[in-house]
C-alpha cells in the first residue's frame, strides 16, 4: 500500500494539476496519479485560451470571471512560467445579421461586468491592420488572455510537488477501493492508494473513470483541429475570431462545425482553429475540417493564403451535453469528486476550478457556488453498471 493522502487527484492535465496545487495551499496532503506524463491529454492539444468573450451570461461566465481573477491575482507572480499573455480578444462580424447578434451579446455581457467594447471598422483596422476588408464591425475584449497550456499544467504540478504533493506518472487507475459504500481510494498498476477523497480530473476520459464507481458523468469527446503556420513577424496581434464561433461553441450538433479562430504566438507561428465534431476518439485527419478551417481563416485574414502550415494537431474536448463543467462532490458515490467536462474552456477555467475544488475538499464554503456544476444533475447510477461494492470486489 502506498502512503495515504487526504486527496488523490487522478489526471495531471491542467485541471488536475490546479486542484493539486490549491489543495496543498489548503494544507491537505495530496497524491497525483497520471496514466501518462503531465499534460499528455487535451491540455497539450489546445490553444491555451482564457476567454470571457465567447461566454453567454450564466454560471460558466461566472466561473470564467472567477478563474481569470485566480490567473491574474493568486498566480500573478508565476505568470511568466506559463507565458501568460493578456493579449485581448476580438470578435469580428462579417455579415449584418452576425453584427446584430454580436451587439446583443456584448450588451448582455456588459451587464454581467464583462469589459466588452464595440469597435468601428476603423478602430478594428487600427488594432488588426491585416484584417479582411469585408469586416463590418467587431467587439474588443481586453480581458481575453492566453497561456502556454502544457507549461501551465506542468508548472502547477511542480509547484504542488514543491508543497509536498506526491506524483506518480505512468500509473493507470484500474478501479476504486471502498468502505461501506464510500470511495476510499483507488487500485492501480502501481498498487493501491488510499485517500479521504478521490478527484476525477481525467478530462475527456472522465466518463470511463466515473463508470468504475458506477456514476454517470456523460462527458464525450468533441474533436478539434488546430493548424500551426511557419514562424512570421507579428501579423496578428490579438486572438481574433468570427462571430459565428460563439454559436458553434454553444451548439450540440455532432457534425462538423468550423469557424475561424486565428492568433499569433510569442514564437511567431500563427495558430488557426477551429473545428468541432463529435466523432468519438477518432484521430484520422479530416480533409473537410482542414479545408473549412483554411477557407475561414483566409476570409478573416487574406494574407494567410500564401502562408505555409508546418503541422496540425487535434484534440478531444471534454464535451458535456448541457455545456457546463462537472465540478464537486458526487453524492451518488460518496468520496468521489469530479472536475471535468470543461469542453473548450478547460485551460481558462482550470485554476478557478482547482481553487474552488480545494476549498470544498478542505470542508470550506467555496468562493463561488458549485451547485450549477453538481455531478448528480445527470441523475442516479448508470443502468446496468456495477455498484461500488461490485466494482471493488
Amino acid at each position, binding site marked *: 500500500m502506498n502512503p495515504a493522502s487526504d486527496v488523490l487527484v487522478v489526471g495531471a492535465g491542467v485541471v488536475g494539476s490546479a486542484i493539486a496545487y490549491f489543495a496543498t495551499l489548503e494544507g491537505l496532503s495530496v497524491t497525483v496519479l497520471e496514466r501518462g*506524463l503531465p499534460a499528455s491529454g487535451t491540455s*497539450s492539444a489546445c490553444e491555451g485560451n482564457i476567454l470571457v468573450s465567447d461566454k453567454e451570461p450564466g454560471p460558466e461566465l461566472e466561473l470564467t470571471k472567477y478563474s481569470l481573477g485566480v490567473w491574474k491575482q493568486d498566480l500573478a507572480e508565476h505568470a511568466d512560467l506559463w507565458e501568460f499573455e493578456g493579449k485581448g480578444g476580438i470578435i469580428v462580424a462579417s455579415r449584418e445579421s452576425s453584427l446584430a447578434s454580436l451587439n446583443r451579446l456584448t450588451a448582455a455581457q456588459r451587464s454581467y461586468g464583462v469589459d466588452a467594447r464595440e469597435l468601428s471598422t476603423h478602430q478594428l483596422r487600427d488594432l488588426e491592420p491585416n484584417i479582411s476588408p469585408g469586416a463590418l464591425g467587431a467587439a474588443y475584449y481586453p480581458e481575453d488572455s492566453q497561456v502556454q497550456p502544457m507549461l501551465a499544467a*506542468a508548472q502547477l504540478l511542480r509547484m504542488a510537488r514543491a508543497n509536498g504533493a506526491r506524483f506518480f*506518472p505512468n500509473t493507470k487507475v484500474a478501479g476504486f477501493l471502498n468502505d461501506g459504500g464510500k470511495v476510499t481510494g483507488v487500485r492501480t498498476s502501481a498498487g493501491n492508494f488510499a485517500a479521504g477523497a478521490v478527484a476525477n480530473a481525467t478530462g475527456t476520459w472522465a466518463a470511463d473513470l466515473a463508470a468504475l464507481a458506477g456514476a454517470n458523468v456523460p462527458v464525450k469527446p468533441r474533436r478539434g483541429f488546430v493548424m500551426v503556420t511557419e514562424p512570421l513577424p507579428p501579423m496578428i496581434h490579438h486572438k481574433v475570431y468570427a462571430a459565428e464561433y460563439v454559436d458553434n461553441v454553444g451548439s450540440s450538433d455532432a457534425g462538423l462545425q468550423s469557424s475561424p479562430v486565428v492568433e499569433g504566438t510569442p514564437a511567431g507561428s500563427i495558430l488557426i482553429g477551429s473545428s468541432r465534431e463529435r466523432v468519438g476518439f477518432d484521430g484520422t*485527419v479530416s480533409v473537410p475540417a*482542414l479545408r473549412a478551417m483554411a477557407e475561414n481563416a483566409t476570409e478573416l485574414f487574406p494574407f494567410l493564403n500564401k502562408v*505555409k*502550415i*508546418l503541422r496540425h494537431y487535434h484534440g478531444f474536448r471534454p464535451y458535456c451535453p448541457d455545456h457546463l463543467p462537472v465540478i464537486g462532490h458526487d453524492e451518488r458515490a460518496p468520496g468521489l469528486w469530479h472536475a471535468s467536462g470543461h469542453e473548450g474552456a478547460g485551460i481558462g477555467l482550470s485554476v478557478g476550478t482547482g481553487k474552488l475544488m480545494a476549498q470544498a475538499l478542505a470542508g470550506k464554503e467555496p468562493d463561488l457556488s458549485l451547485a450549477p456544476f453538481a455531478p448528480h444533475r445527470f441523475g442516479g447510477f448508470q443502468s446496468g453498471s456495477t455498484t461500488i461494492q461490485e466494482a471493488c470486489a
Partner: protein
Amino acid sequence: MSSSQHYDVAIIGAGPAGLAAAATAAERGARVVCIDANDQPGGQFWRHRPEDTHPEDDGSLHHDWKTYLRLRAGFDAAAAVGSLCFYPGRQVWMAQREDNGFTLRTTASAQAGRAAPGPQTVRATQLVVCAGGYDRQLPVPGWDLPGVMAAGGIQAFIKANGMLPGKRFVVAGTGPFLLPVAANIAEAGGAVAAVCESADLTGWFPHLATAARVPAKALEGTEYAKSFLKHRIPYRTRTVVTEVLGSDRVQAVRTAKVDSHGRTVQGSERLIEDVDAVGFGWGFTAQMELPVALGAETRVDDDGSLVGVVDSQQHSSVPGLYLAGEVSGVGGAALAVVEGVIAGRAAAASTAAQSSAAESSAADVRLARKAGTYRAFARAMHLAHPVPAGWQDWLRPETTVCRCEEVTAGDIAAAKEHLCATDARTMKSMTRTGMGWCQGKVCGFAVSCLAGTEGASAESLRSVAKRPVSVPVTLSELLTLEDEQVLETTTDH
C-alpha cells in the same frame, strides 16, 4: 474537373529502392506513378548534376553507377510507353488510406530547382514508400556554426554542384558512409584534415564472416582505402569531435579518444586547426512520416532507428502498403535495390491477375537470399558502429539541441528534472523541441535520447516521426483539397 489520377501502384521516391520498385512494377504490367522531391531520379545515393545542363555526367563520383544506368533505362522505358508516370520536384504532404487504396496529396517540393507541375491529388491501389533516409545528427558545442553540415549534405553539394562547400574538412561520426564522403571531398580537390570514426574497427572482427559474404562491399572498401592513401587522408578510429570552434564560422575542431564503452578519455583532447567545414554523420534516420501517418507498425532497429515492420514481400502491417529501402531498415543502396524489386513485384502482382508461378518462385527465392545477405551485412555494420554511449557528456548547458527553436541542453535537462518531461512528446510540449521548420528531423533522435532514461524509446521515436503534414503546405493548397468521396467518383483515365 477533378485533377486526381488513379494508378495501380504509387511509388514515393526515385532513389535506389524507388527506381527499382517503379521499373519492376511497370515491367510487370502495373500502371505506376512515381513521385520524387528532386528534379531528377537517383535519390541521394545517385544524385547527379542537372541532366539538361550536364548530360556528360559519367558517374565518376558514384558507386555502382552501372546499376543506376540499368534501373534508369528500365524506368525511362516504362515512362516512354506510358506505363509509368514520373512527377519529379513534388512531395507528398499527406497520405491517407481509404477502402480501395491510398490518396496522396502532393505539393511542389522545396528542394526542387524548378517549377514542378503535377497533380495535387494522386490515388493508387497499392503504395510503395521508398522515402530513404537522412544523416542522423548529434548535437555538439559549436555545431550550429556556419560550415558545419551533415556528411550527406557535403556529398549532396558536391554531387549536385560539382564544387566544394569548403576547403579543408573534418568528417566525423560513425559508419562506413564517412568513407565515400571523405573520398568525394578529396577527389573534388578538397583537403580532408581527418576522418574521425568513433568506433573501434576491431568491432568489425566478430562480423567479418558476414561481411565477407558481400564481395561488392569489400571491393568498395578497397577503393576507399586506395583513395585515402592517394590523398593522404588521416583516418582516426575511436575518435570523436567534442567541440567545433570558431567565431562566425568553423575554424577548428576539438577531438578526443573514446574508450571501449564509448566514453571520452581524459587528457586525449587534440585541436585540429585551419578547418572551414565539418561533416557529421551518425548513421541514418529513415524518413518515416508517411508510414507512421498511415498507421504502419514500427520497430527500433539495431542502429536505434525507427523503421517499418515488413514481411518477406516488403509488405507492411497496413494492407496495400509496401516499404522498401531505409524505411524498412537502414541498409544502404544495394539492399534498397533488392527490396525495391521485391516490393515492385509484389505490388504489381496484387493488382493484376497475371503471374507465372514457377518463374516467380525461383526469382523470389533468389531475391530473398540476396536481401538476406545484405541485411546481415547491414546488421554487422550497425553493431560495429554504435552511437557512442558518452555523447551526452560533450554537451554543455548552453549547447543548442533544437536549432529551429533554439532550445539548449540546459533547457531540456531542466524540463526533464522539474516538469517530468521524460519522453520526446512531453519534451516538445514543455520546451518547443521539434516545433520549428524541420519538425524535429534534425534533433528528434537526440531529444529522444536526452528525455529518456535508457536511450531513445520506441514511443519517443514514433512521436518524433509523427508529422501529419509531412512537408509545409500553403493554406491556398488546403483550400482546393478534394474530398475522398468526390475522388471516388471522378477518377481520370
